[in-house]
């Protein structure tokens, strides 16, 4: 409350300056059949990027996108940034929401968010440096699915060995609704930069075929998540 009245008292000319904000976040997995791994949320200054389309994924983003681990994103977060990790306390199932209450963004002005999409090889839901509004209110942002560009989308589920960076294959299909025995969709990637994910191909053969993911369940259309930000 004290901070809010401070903001209100400031002349408009200073409205783009950095003021501490406390926000509530609600993130909803909009997909029909994709799980999100633990979510990494970071409030940071202008000019900082957790990831950027058209740029190489950092090793921390690669670890998140290929294996769902956000430990390196948390430990490597920009100095002065504020982090909220794993608000769903694990996986965020399809159509389920997770909340972050009273997230203190400090003096940071921009918000980023990432979580791996399962089952994919290196797909993740991302929000890249969204400017946090200064005015109190409720804001809705829709998030797209990205491909980290670090692993071939073979769509073969190999178990936990598929998680560590550089290892081929998908670590898991948490819905228990995927197949086995796939020969692989592709063994190479053209775009090694972060880019919009082209989607899972999948197939309808649970005991073979080219893909272990189910084309009727594990596809998606953007957006894959909804983020509601309440600026207090």
């Amino acid at each position, binding site marked *: 409350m004290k901070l809010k009245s401070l903001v209100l008292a400031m002349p408009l000319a200073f409205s783009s300056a950095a003021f501490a904000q406390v926000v509530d976040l609600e993130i909803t997995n*909009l997909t029909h059949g994709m799980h999100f791994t633990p979510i990494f949320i970071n409030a940071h200054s202008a000019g900082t990027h957790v990831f950027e389309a058209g740029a190489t994924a950092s090793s921390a983003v690669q670890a998140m996108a290929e294996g769902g681990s956000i430990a390196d994103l948390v430990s490597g977060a920009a100095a002065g940034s504020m982090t909220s990790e794993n608000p769903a306390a694990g996986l965020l199932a399809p159509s389920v929401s997770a909340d972050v209450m009273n997230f203190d963004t400090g003096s940071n002005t921009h918000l980023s968010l990432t979580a791996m999409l399962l089952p994919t090889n290196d797909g993740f839901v991302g929000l890249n440096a969204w400017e946090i509004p200064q005015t109190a209110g409720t804001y809705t942002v829709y998030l797209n699915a990205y491909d980290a560009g670090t692993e071939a989308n073979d769509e073969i589920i190999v178990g936990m060995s598929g998680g560590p960076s550089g290892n081929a294959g998908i670590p898991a299909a948490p819905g228990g609704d995927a197949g086995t025995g796939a020969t692989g969709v592709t063994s190479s990637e053209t775009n090694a930069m972060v880019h919009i994910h082209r*989607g899972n*191909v999948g197939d*309808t053969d649970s005991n073979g075929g080219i893909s272990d993911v189910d084309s*009727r*369940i594990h*596809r998606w259309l953007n957006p894959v998540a909804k983020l509601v930000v309440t600026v207090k």
Partner: protein
Amino acid sequence: MNNIKWNHALAFVTMASVLSACGSGSSNSGGDTDAPTPANYEITLTNVTSNQPLSPVAVLMHSQSYRLWSVGSPASVALETLAEGGANADVLALDDVSKQAMASGAGAIMPGAYETLLVTLDNPTTATYLSVSTMLVNTNDAFTGVTGLSIADLSMGESATVSLGVYDAGTEVNSELVNTIPGQMGEGFNAERTDTNVVSRHPGVVGSDDGHSASVLDSRHKFDNPAAILTVTRVN
């Protein structure tokens, strides 16, 4: 809500000054006795899909508390009926204190076509929210629309345009088999719930050209977001 209230109050002030200029001598200081002026809205829905006719559209105007669906919650039977078979009567029959007005499309809206409905709101002084829903008929249980769109701030002549994404009612598994797709003469509504039983965004049509050989659908039935464009215009 505030905007319309304000407009209404302004209209009253104008009328009062006209009366006094005519020297009618009767002064009405209350202002709470004049009947509300109906507001008319033009609702235009354009089908921007490749080959997904949209079932007769259901339009509801209602107060803030009502939502026709919510991602993560089970679809109502009325919405299931619309999403699986394209019948909008149950959605429109919503018997709820929150309902303020409704309208039904005259028929299916074919790909590339649009329909404009005129909806009259008898009492626009209350907060008004819009819900629109229609089935993509070459699917198991896909629908597009919007729920809880605030239109109370629209003043005369103003319009709002929204791109509509596609939802999955979660009530029927997306088998794409011939006997399950109403647009292919298959079954419409079936009360049995064979999928996730919660509303989500739709993952899209797979189709026989994309590896699902048993599907009655093909590449022409694929869609992306948005599937429809909605324009709401307050015309008086």
